[in-house]
């Protein structure tokens, strides 16, 4: 195992984050705080409890997920896309590193950033909303699992994208709508039956539901199912990345 290579990639990516602190950390924390203020404190105070949880507190897990998903994808996709775009990918391809080590470096860094960001958002939320975490270990498990899974997904997007537009299209056109419709701001039990069934095809529902369960002990879907679906998505991403390295798709001619 080439640990020095994993460390080199990881350090390089983390250094980029700290170089662009405003964009990487401050900006998503600020924008999520605005959600807390507008939907949580201002509008939420006029809404009733959901499953015994105040609306302001109810939306916290969903909002953390919203940031976690978009930042995981964005960090990981940019991390691998930019070397491809600038041409510096030659160095990674010519180095004695295995696909696992490359992925561990890039995805590890992207997931670390997202977890850091998720925890910062949770801390910031505390300034506006009073909330509890019933299962802190499970909360961290869901946070880490989601960050890693969607960083893997971001890595795939970074390999697939051959211009900046494609880099943005999946997070903006697919992930954001799925998150908004995935129960971030409501319980899917509040939907008509048909839409409840349709919502179950949205993978983000399982993430938000599981994450919310870790906070308040209430969930839209069974916790085991949430973990299973997240794990399945992770395996799908891993299999796709395996295929990318086997075939050299868009990285090795």
């Amino acid at each position, binding site marked *: 195992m080439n640990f020095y290579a994993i460390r080199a990639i990881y350090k390089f990516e983390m250094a980029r984050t700290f170089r662009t602190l405003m964009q990487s950390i401050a900006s998503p924390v600020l924008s999520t705080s605005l959600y807390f203020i507008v939907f949580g404190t201002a509008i939420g105070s006029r809404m009733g409890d959901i499953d015994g949880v105040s609306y302001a507190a109810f939306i916290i897990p969903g909002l953390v997920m919203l940031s976690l998903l978009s930042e995981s994808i964005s960090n990981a996709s940019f991390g691998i896309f930019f070397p491809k775009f600038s041409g510096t990918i030659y160095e990674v*391809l010519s180095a004695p590193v295995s696909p696992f080590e490359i992925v561990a470096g890039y995805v590890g860094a992207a997931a670390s950033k997202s977890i850091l960001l998720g925890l910062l958002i949770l801390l910031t939320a505390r300034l506006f909303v009073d909330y509890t975490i019933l299962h802190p270990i499970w909360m961290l498990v869901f946070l880490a699992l989601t960050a890693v899974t969607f960083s893997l997904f971001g890595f795939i997007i970074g390999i697939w994208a051959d211009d900046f537009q494609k880099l943005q299209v999946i997070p903006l056109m697919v992930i954001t709508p799925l998150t908004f419709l995935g129960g971030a701001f409501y319980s899917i039990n509040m939907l008509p039956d048909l839409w409840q069934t349709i919502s179950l095809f949205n993978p983000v529902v399982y993430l938000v539901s599981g994450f919310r369960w870790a906070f308040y002990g209430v969930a839209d879907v069974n916790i085991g199912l949430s973990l299973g679906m997240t794990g399945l998505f992770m395996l799908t991403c891993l299999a796709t990345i395996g295929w990318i390295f086997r075939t050299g798709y868009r990285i090795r001619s």
Partner: protein
Amino acid sequence: MHSIIKVQDLGKTYDSGFTALNNISLEIKRGEIFALLGPNGAGKTTLISIICGIARATSGNVLADGFDIVLNYREAREKIGLVPQELTNDAFESVWSTVNFSRGLFGKAPDKAYIEKILRQLSLWDKRNAKMRELSGGMKRRVMIAKALSHEPDILFLDEPTAGVDVELRRDMWEMVRELRESGVTIILTTHYIEEAEEMADRIGVIRKGEIILVEEKSALMDKLGKKTLSIHLQCNLNAIPSELSAFNLTLDQEGSYLHFSYDSTESDRVAELLAQLNTLEIGIKDLNSSESSLEDIFVDLVKEA
């Protein structure tokens, strides 16, 4: 001297159907400077890319210091450093961090003293904290070399190392390449500057349309393929070349005052024959001047042949 790189029947056909390499076989000797010459699109960069792991071969195999570049890619790649043709770099990284990144990537423990040594050798020490985007083209090229040397490779590929650099820097780089060779590094360079190959290479390979058409010691190549021209300034102008001289490859200039005799470097005894014949024909000679074709002339001749 046994080979450090062994390329066997290497072929590369891209998805588009374009065949960049056509069953190439080539051996690079340990410790030599090998220059690979070829026109644009001949397959030079594809060959280097395959050996370094950036591209995949369609057929054949490559051994780097005895290690198969696919089956034993870790061992093989540890031996190799690459300076690519394009000046690709991380614009916001400092020289120090980008060179250290390369060392780590190639599985080497951090070694500040060694990195300092190569930065000093390449006159980059004063720029170690500068961001890559702040450097001139020549400095960036040096950083690329420092990155390639950061993991102490035994084999260094230089793909067009002096493209776009000024004459002074080019000469500095030639000197640096010689020093590297002295330290035991095998160097394979591709270049458009024939002067560069002529100046530095021990052996020369010529690639054309994906095929190696020649590999030769530079001096042997110059001897074997080098053309010589003897220019004879005549005392009296001639209207035409006398028929008695038809056995010689002669041309007469427009004014009839110069005879030019072209011959291979291996047949220099023909000069004496020609001079004797001129003497017999009582054609007076005012002056003689001989010139030898450069490697560039040889290269142009080789790649012209279809």
